[in-house]
């Protein structure tokens, strides 16, 4: 008779084992309420359906002369979209060698908004990222691998290669009174850029190993000048961005090419207006560059930019249904906890798991895992399929690496999981379903909509996306902000102020804080 009070049970003999059982129990709880499972499925369906529908409704075409074509993008050696337009005066270099020049001046002109409608308003000047320098490139094909060292108008000397890579050298531009010597040396696959103020003392700017540089390359002088960017604020807080024509003209002399140069004696320089666009009709170049040579002095005028391009649609633009999907996930996550409080079932849970933090932790694990799976399913379907539909409809979708695409998809899953945990914790704190959903939507979805719907000033929008849980949306940004490209990097355009993982960390911080508060509240109060 007395033995029955000391029944030995083998179940949950150690803590970790017991926690596994609690997670199993919470999963059973979740899957046995049809409404919750259906709610998660609705969340996934909303993301997929809205995303694919908006992709299917988006069509674009571009013109090549009179012919309508699909919009294509130039891609660089890394697969990313690039802008590759500049004036190139070059000779063929076989194997190792070097090129040295002196840049004597850089001038240019900028077209400003028309003061008198229809009359071109052109002023003298150079844009900050106007470039003049020397380059080694795998031919003159747009998007080909290269390395270059250059003087810019406002950003000093730079060493750049393969479009995305950029290293700063010494500051300051060039003017007739203070020229700049530049040198680019090839040794195998490595290029080293140098600069000098006097042509005698050289300073290394940087080294580069371009992705695909064959034995024979084109080496020479180049000039480029990106469009002038004007951002004007709209009436409703939005912004309109204008990019207008500019050109830059640089004067080079003391040009010395060493190595096995084609036609070493009496050889001539070739010149190409790389990437030039043509007027309708396809014959006349639009805004052509030009060059003259006289007694070893080269005057080169270039238009365009050699840089990564962010003009085009993003893969994450297919996630237009995400806010709706997240709200469905929030509702389910909140109900997962508030339904227990409403029915008094919470006490039954505590009888089964008397150590309170553990019961809540198990619930967190389950809702997080379910939401992660839901987010992963939604994103893994929507992002690749949506991008494919967009491209099939003629849209230019900025290509990204497989790794980036995986990061976006996994990031959406993690974002969904973190939002679900935040919602669960708010449900446990507030204990009333409608109120908790309102709070979480107000923390996550509302700031994101405000920040990206161009109703707030840019600074406020950026701070919202740094400080609120909506920072987590940064994880889905597939195209980075490039320091060497002047652009209007606004949340509206899909640029978040925090890097992807940092933004996600902010959201996770909020979720963790709420979960801890909920656990503390739970362990203090009588049930």
């Amino acid at each position: 008779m007395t033995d029955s009070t000391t029944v030995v049970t083998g179940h949950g003999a150690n803590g970790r084992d017991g926690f596994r059982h609690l997670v199993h129990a919470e999963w059973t709880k979740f899957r046995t309420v049809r409404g919750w499972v259906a709610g998660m499925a609705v969340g996934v369906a909303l993301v997929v359906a809205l995303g694919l529908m908006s992709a299917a409704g988006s069509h674009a075409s571009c013109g090549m002369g009179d012919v309508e074509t699909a919009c294509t993008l130039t891609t660089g050696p890394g697969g990313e979209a690039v802008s590759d337009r500049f004036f190139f005066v070059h000779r063929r270099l076989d194997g190792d060698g070097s090129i040295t020049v002196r840049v004597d001046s850089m001038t240019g002109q900028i077209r400003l908004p028309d003061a008198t409608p229809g009359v071109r308003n052109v002023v003298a000047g150079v844009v900050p990222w106007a470039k003049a320098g020397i380059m080694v490139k795998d031919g003159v094909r747009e998007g080909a691998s290269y390395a270059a060292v250059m003087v810019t108008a406002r950003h000093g000397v730079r060493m750049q290669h393969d479009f995305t890579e950029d290293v700063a050298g010494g500051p300051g531009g060039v003017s007739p009174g203070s020229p700049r010597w530049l040198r680019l040396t090839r040794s195998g696959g490595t290029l080293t850029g140098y600069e000098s103020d006097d042509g005698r003392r050289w300073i290394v700017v940087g080294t580069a190993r371009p992705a695909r540089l064959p034995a024979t390359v084109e080496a020479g002088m180049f000039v480029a000048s990106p469009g002038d960017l004007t951002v004007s604020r709209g009436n409703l807080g939005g912004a309109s961005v204008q990019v207008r024509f500019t050109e830059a003209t640089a004067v080079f002399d003391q040009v010395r090419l060493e190595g096995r140069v084609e036609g070493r004696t009496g050889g001539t320089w070739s010149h190409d207006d790389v990437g030039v666009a043509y007027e309708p009709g396809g014959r006349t170049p639009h805004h052509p560059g030009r060059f003259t040579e006289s007694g070893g002095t080269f005057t080169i005028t270039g238009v365009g930019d050699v840089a990564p391009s962010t003009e085009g649609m993003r893969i994450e633009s297919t996630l237009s249904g995400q806010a709706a999907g997240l709200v469905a996930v929030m509702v389910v996550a909140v109900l997962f906890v508030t339904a227990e409080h409403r029915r008094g079932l919470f006490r039954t849970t505590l009888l089964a798991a008397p150590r309170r933090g553990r019961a809540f932790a198990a619930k967190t694990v389950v809702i997080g895992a379910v939401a992660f799976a839901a987010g992963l399913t939604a994103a893994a379907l929507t992002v690749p399929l949506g991008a494919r539909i967009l491209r099939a409809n003629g849209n230019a979708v900025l290509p990204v690496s497989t790794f980036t695409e995986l990061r976006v998809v996994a990031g959406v899953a993690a974002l969904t999981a973190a939002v679900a945990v935040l919602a669960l914790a708010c449900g446990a704190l507030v204990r009333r379903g409608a109120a908790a959903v309102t709070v979480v939507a107000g923390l996550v979805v509302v700031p994101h909509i405000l920040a990206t719907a161009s109703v707030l000033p840019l600074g406020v929008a950026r701070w919202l996306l740094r400080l609120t849980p909506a920072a987590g949306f940064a994880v889905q940004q597939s195209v980075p902000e490039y320091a060497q490209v002047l652009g209007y990097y606004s949340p509206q355009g899909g640029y978040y102020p925090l890097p992807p993982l940092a933004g996600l960390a902010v959201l996770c911080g909020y979720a963790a804080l709420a979960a801890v508060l909920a656990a503390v509240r739970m362990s203090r109060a009588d049930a």
Partner: protein
Amino acid sequence: MRAAIEVIGLRKRYGPTVALDGMSFTVLPGRVTGFVGPNGAGKSTTMRVILGLDTADEGSALVGGRPYRSLRAPLCQVGALLDAAALQPSRTARNHLLWLAHSQGLGARRVDEVIEQVGLGAVARRRAGGFSLGMRQRLGIAAALLGDPPVLMLDEPVNGLDPVGIVWIRGLLRSLAAEGRAVLVSSHLMSEMQDMADHLVVAGRGRVVADTSVADLIAAASDGRVTLRTTARPEAMEVLARAGARVAVQDRDTLTVSGLEAGRIVALLGANDVPFSEVAAHRASLEEAYMELSRDAVEFRATTPGDGTATS
């Protein structure tokens, strides 16, 4: 014998209200212990403190010698029914038990066993939201039995059960006790305990007012009283009152007499030619005994000593 439940000096306040005021008792294995008292006596609070749901300001409550919150796989140590309405309405009865089973590392087979044991086999896959109160009580009892625990605590388990259900639960609890388990059953109705409990803990105003076996409690309440059955009630009352007895009317032909022993009553009635059909030592009902105790507990003493005998 090792106590299955030990409640030691529990005190708890909710603001100005004293819920528990030194509640102490033990529950032993092998018998059904009734935990009775009027509403507000502190029964539910005590059970919730034992189960680790509420924290007492003072004192301690141990199950099998340990606080509930420190138990591993607690449902395998203590089975409890607190609130039969605590169910997710859209979840089926079986799934409700299934998540509880999984939380303790138990499998579906055990769920099917207890669901048959409480007679819900036919409705196991129906949503619990559609259950009657009686069915919910059975489901709650199934949950308490799930871990095959040596200790059972049931708060008002008879509520909502039909007569068949009441008979069933009495039999079930007695057989569980007979297997050597400790069973604590609370109720605010003493009559429910009559054929169910072996031992009683009577609570009032947050403490124990009696901790005794059912037999002792009834004997104490019956002390010195005699039941007289007669067709000539007025005459009998007159004769006995003249002899100094206190007489209370129990019903149309039954009187309860105190202050005179049975032999003397028979002699008096014979001498005065008062007919009677039965004279017997009075056996108080549990309800009467409880009323006496409760009166003390709630301090509603009768103002006239003559009204002291129970009449209902």
